[in-house]
């Protein structure tokens, strides 16, 4: 194998990618997903933690209170989120339908220490973003009332849970886990999946367009062709992953150990690229190769995720800076797998190349 031949093949593939401008689509795709994920985050945060949007936190919602007196009325009157109007139930619901109120609460006359539970009926607007926010705010009030009732009925309980006093955090932290524990490993790892699909395309194309004979008639051997293509695809991974990390950082998401993340991604993706290469060499036809490979990919990824200290988990831990010594063991393990797969690819390509020359 000559390094010069490898680089010739790799450069040929890069030229092909750039001349088709399909690489632009890949970049567009990344931007698109980044935009959408930020939409998901901000949109959902504002829904589930309304106080994160100052616009909503300053707003006082009108609610009607109907039925019998209870501590709920006091909680509502003292709350800064609501303006309460004691009303008759039918009037309240009619005003709710005209959007003059955000909710109507009806409380029965069940005594606090009754055998039966207290059943509050809550009327809210259907299909309305604001009523979702009102629900979240009302929940706090109901939880307070529930705690009160539970204390009154405490004598009837047998077991008490181990006490743990958890302070109320001041906003934030809602989507930290989503961003670092799901989004980052997913996004950083996507280039690996693209690269392995690409290597199948590059190899099967030579077979199906019958351009392989022309390539083989040059001084480049078949094995060199295969490794050149593998190299081209593998090189794309750290470049794309780096673009992701930069994009995320521009979005204000701090990522630690960026270089180590790139190392982990590149090494893990090498496994996928080699698997793709082996599949493509075996089938020499795109439909079959892609089908088998994507099914195998799902299996490998699921299996990976089921193991503790898997590479995806490491990406998360590297990004937040809690990865320890185990990352080097994982790196060693993946390198070993690469070595085995690499040998297999090399031998297989050699055999195919020889049979071609003799035949």
């Amino acid at each position, binding site marked *: 194998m000559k390094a010069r031949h490898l680089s010739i093949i790799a450069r040929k593939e890069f030229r092909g*990618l750039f001349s*088709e401008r399909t690489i632009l689509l*890949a970049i567009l795709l990344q931007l*698109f997903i980044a935009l959408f994920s930020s939409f998901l985050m*901000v949109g*959902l945060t504002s829904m*589930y933690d309304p106080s994160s949007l100052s616009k909503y936190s300053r707003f006082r919602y009108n609610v009607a209170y109907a039925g019998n007196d209870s501590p709920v009325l006091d909680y509502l009157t003292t709350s800064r989120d609501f303006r309460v109007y004691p*009303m008759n*139930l*039918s009037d309240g*619901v*009619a005003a*709710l*339908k005209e959007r*003059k*109120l955000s909710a109507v609460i009806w409380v029965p*006359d069940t005594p606090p220490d009754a055998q*039966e*539970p207290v059943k509050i*009926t*809550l009327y*809210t*607007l259907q*299909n*309305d973003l*604001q009523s*979702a926010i009102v629900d979240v705010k009302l929940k706090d009030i*109901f939880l307070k009332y*529930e705690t009160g009732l539970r204390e009154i*009925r405490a004598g*009837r*309980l*047998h*077991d*008490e*849970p181990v006490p*743990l*006093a*958890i*302070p109320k*955090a001041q*906003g934030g*932290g*809602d989507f*930290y*886990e989503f961003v670092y524990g*799901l989004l980052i490993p997913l996004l950083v790892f996507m280039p690996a999946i693209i690269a392995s699909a690409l290597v199948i*395309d*590059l190899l099967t194309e030579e077979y199906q367009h*019958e351009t392989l004979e022309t390539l083989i008639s040059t001084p480049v051997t078949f094995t060199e062709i295969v490794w050149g293509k593998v190299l081209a695809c593998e090189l794309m991974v750290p470049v794309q992953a780096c673009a992701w990390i930069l994009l995320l950082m521009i979005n204000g998401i701090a990522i630690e150990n960026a270089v180590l993340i790139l190392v982990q991604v590149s090494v893990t993706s090498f496994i996928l690229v080699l698997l793709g290469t082996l599949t493509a060499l075996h089938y020499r036809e795109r*439909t*079959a190769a892609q089908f*088998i490979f994507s099914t*195998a990919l*799902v*299996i490998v990824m699921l*299996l990976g*995720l*089921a193991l503790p200290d898997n590479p995806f988990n490491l990406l998360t831990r590297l990004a937040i800076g*809690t990865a320890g010594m185990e990352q080097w063991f994982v790196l060693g393990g993946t390198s070993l797998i690469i070595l085995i797969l690499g040998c297999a690819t090399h031998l297989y390509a050699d055999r195919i190349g020889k049979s071609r020359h003799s035949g």
Partner: protein
Amino acid sequence: MGDLKDIATIARWEVKKSFSVMGRNVLPLAIVLFVLLVLVTGFTTQSGLHLQDGMYEVGVNDPALAGLIAGDPRFSVYQISAASPDWRGNSFDLIVINGEVFYRGTEKSKSALKTLERNYGKYVNSVYNAEEDLFAAYPLWIDVQPQKSELDFLATQSGQSITAAPGRQAPVPEGPVAEIPTPSPTLAFTRDELRQELTKTSSANPQISRYTEILTTDNAMGNFKTPSQMSPPLPFDSIILIFVFIFPLYFTSQFFMMSIMNERIERKGEILLSMPVKTGSIILGKMLPYFLGMLAICTGLTVWIGAPFIILLPLVPVIFFFLANALIIGMLSRSFKELSFISIFFSTVATSYLFFPSIFANVHVISFISPLTLIVLSLQGTAWTATDYLYSTSLFWLTSAVIFFVAARNFKEERLFSEKNLVTRMREFLSEVLSRKRPFLSLFLLTGFSIPFIFMVQMMCLVLFFNLPMPYSLVLLLLFAALIEEIAKGIGIYTIYARDAAFFTWKNVVYACAATAIGFLVGEKLLLFVTLAQITESVFGSILFLSLGVLWMPLLLHFAGVLIVTACLKLGGRGWFAPGLALAMVVHCLYNLYFILGWLS
């Protein structure tokens, strides 16, 4: 009759061919992989997904609490002996001393706190669930009664808030007051039913439900819940189920895409084209097996999850949409790389279009732009109407039909086997649709039929810009909406210009622009009429359709926009297309701004 027979014959060939390709080599391995997949899935459900292990570090001085917290692999727990929280020399996110939790001000620490709070809540619930006297442990139950507001459609869309109250007085309803019966204070469920439900929700697999529980608690009791179960109604489980449906559809459409592509490699499809059969029959015949396959998969999945069969109805237009796009992508791309990238791009965009609106299934009417919302509703047991169906699927039906038409017109030798680049090929495809004999009628129709695509792209922009702060989102939306409309109007003109520049005498320029502008307006109003028919029943319908009376203003705008583009093309040549578009966009924006600013002031 003859056509049907042709279609059946070609469909049979297609099945035979794909089996001969896939059969011998692929099937055995596919079966092995499938068995492996089942085994691995089983293993994964057993051991859980270890994606977020060891994210947080906690120092605890009480061994009982340490055991409790360490039950969640997200926490690495360390035993400490300090009597007061000390943050120096460690990277703890939380410190627990004598049952009291302390946290840092960082995002990570707050996130750890929230996770701990959820875990502790679940632990407390598991203790209370075992209580003999359930109503002492859960003394409060909330019965949520959602009410439908007559005004909700446009009020929420235009960002209106609920009217502020007139001072200290209670609001008085203006309309008639319907008598609401006093709710009964007794529960509709027995104690055991409630206990069963409570145990079920708390014992779900923690490794999987962790991703869903942030957002919702699933509850078979419907609107009847304890206060801690009250969260915005997000049907997360159902949404995940949607991926179960969409993924196989995407997969199968890949085979169709590849089968089209294979016909084009080394001119293999020449035999097919030389047959005395209509091109429409060829395409339908090749597509039929895949369509039936996808339908069978969906039916199988529906039976498997035990869902009502009505969810197949919204899936059919989605299947057609996937197939139509697979067809056109298979016909357009030059190489496998291009095929892969375009199909990945398409599937991402399509999946986001389908997926993201359905998150808001119970919250906002905008969710109905995705047919999947109907599936979510069906799975929840909520009914939807024929109007809802029309509203959410019409864009899919229309775009698929238009794409099929364009593909059928271009399914011939000189298009299938040409080696030109993507943009040129797209232009040639359009050129084929635009008749030489009746160019103005073609322009009218082309622009009219581009409306569903424009709507789709604009909806996409709406969802995308939804999250930006207010003035920016509005400005960006205005710019993009204008640009998209101008591009859609300019494409037909550009195609004709590229084919035959001499066609555009000044007289023809005016005619072409008029045809385009009228086509756009007619298409837009027709689609609005069909899809937004449900508004007409509300008070806002009258306001919206008043604007139909003053049609000449938008007509003039569309005419002016397309005239600018055409004039730039005629005077400056093809290089001036993009600047012309930019100019038209500015004019369009100014017009829109004038009207919106007019409303604002």
